[in-house]
């Protein structure tokens, strides 16, 4: 198997269905309902941002979509297939520090192909392609600790995209970055997303970020999290940094 960006772009994009989903977390007296009766669908290729106050269960929902958390009620499906556990089909990017510190950038990115049993030369070539896509050529032999926060997030994105996921899940991926790097990374993400449109669910508490990135914003209430608004954004693509300043000055 030889992964090229053009091949990746030809992947299938998926539909996500969230049906009557409730999730309780904690055990015994500490148990609480994080999400109550959530209902919505994401159409193939859509970029959805989920916003809401901290503790509204938006990360919980993403964890459930990734297959890391069991549902208390309801059903999650991707292309009519029920989500029962983690899968490389549903790539997840966390806020920070989830690169493997003992693997060089190249081998972090090539982790997915390695798990699929693809040979060393082959997977390194694929990793090289992804490095080019996220603009990190020349850094293949670095360890994560030698990279800046923004560069680490680029590697995270590359590591997930190399698996050609049907769904991209992002849990405040730029939340730990400084403002300048964050807006740069938002443009980088949109650029990548244009090259390989993937159904994306992006969790953030930054409204401006959501306005800049999304086709659609789902607003969640405080705990237990429910959908309280569902907004479709009319802004044309490709989008650039000016959009953010325009909308914020309007508001």
């Amino acid at each position: 198997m030889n992964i090229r960006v053009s091949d990746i772009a030809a992947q299938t994009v998926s539909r996500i269905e969230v049906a009557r989903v409730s999730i309780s977390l904690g055990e015994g007296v500490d148990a609480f309902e994080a999400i109550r009766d959530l209902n919505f669908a994401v159409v193939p290729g859509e970029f959805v941002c989920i916003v809401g106050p901290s503790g509204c269960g938006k990360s919980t929902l993403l964890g459930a979509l990734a297959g890391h958390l069991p549902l208390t009620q309801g059903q999650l499906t991707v292309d009519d297939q029920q989500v029962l556990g983690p899968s490389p089909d549903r790539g997840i990017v966390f806020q920070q520090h989830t690169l493997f510190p003992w693997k060089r950038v190249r081998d972090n990115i090539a982790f997915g192909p390695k798990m699929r049993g693809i040979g060393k030369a082959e997977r390194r070539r694929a990793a090289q392609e992804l490095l080019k896509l996220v603009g990190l050529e020349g850094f293949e032999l670095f360890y994560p600790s030698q990279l800046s926060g923004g560069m680490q997030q680029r590697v995270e994105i590359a590591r997930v995209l190399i698996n050609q996921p049907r769904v991209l899940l992002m849990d405040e991926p730029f939340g730990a970055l400084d403002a300048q790097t964050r807006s740069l990374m938002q443009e980088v993400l949109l650029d990548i997303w244009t090259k390989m449109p993937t159904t994306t669910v992006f969790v953030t508490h930054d409204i401006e970020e959501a306005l800049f990135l999304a086709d659609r914003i789902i607003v969640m209430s405080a705990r237990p999290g429910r959908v309280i608004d569902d907004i479709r954004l009319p802004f044309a693509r490709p989008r650039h940094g000016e959009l953010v300043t325009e909308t914020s000055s309007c508001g």
Partner: protein
Amino acid sequence: MAFQRLAERMPGLRWLTRAASILACIGFWQLASSLHVNLGIVTFRNVPPPTEVVQSAIVLLKSPKLLAHVSSSLWRVFAGYGAAVVIGIAFGFAIGRSRAASDLLLPPLELLRPIPAVAWIPLSILIFPSSELSMIFITFIGALFPIILNTVHGVANIDRRLVASAHSLGGTPAAILREIVLPGAAPSIVTGLAIGMGTSWFCLVTAEMISGQFGIGYYTWEAYTLQNYADIVVGMLVIGLLGMGSSWLLTTLGHYLMPWRHPAVAR
């Protein structure tokens, strides 16, 4: 202050100071022992001066005895410590990863842990048919607990988000153990190995003094009973050198096995 400012201008001065400090200690030792100084609570009456120690060291270096003593000590450490490394890491992984293994293995270990390894010497002489085996056992016990506990600590404290990421990237449980848990626990394991190496030598020397017929601990104790006082110090120095060598070996191994901990230059 004046010294600090001077030292900044001449880095060689700091080395000079350090060398002078060691020389001063040796000088004091030479003076105190040759003058048979008695300070009340300590007396240098029977302490051999450094010059005699150097002569004895040269004699020992030339005799075949040194190799026999050192090699039998090294063999015991190799066997006892080696067994502790294998069993300690295996048990540590089992206890750190599985609740069942933890309930099964941990209670007896927790009961035995407060007993210092040296306290095992009499019983181990009774248990084992040869004094050789009992000394290896003491060395093993000394290293076992630090290795187990540090391995458990390292394995149990793996960042769960790293494991979750690996799952999401298609990692099977076996692959996650090999690719995530093992390297993630490695720094803690190596710390356990270093502590274990220290206690291992400590226990070995004690055991050799009590029941050995060869070995560097036995040599040191024999020197005392035969009143070859200079040889006592020679034995101490050899023990120190062996300890230093083995801890250097571990540090080097740690650097080699965990290059990400000290990424040299970017490329």
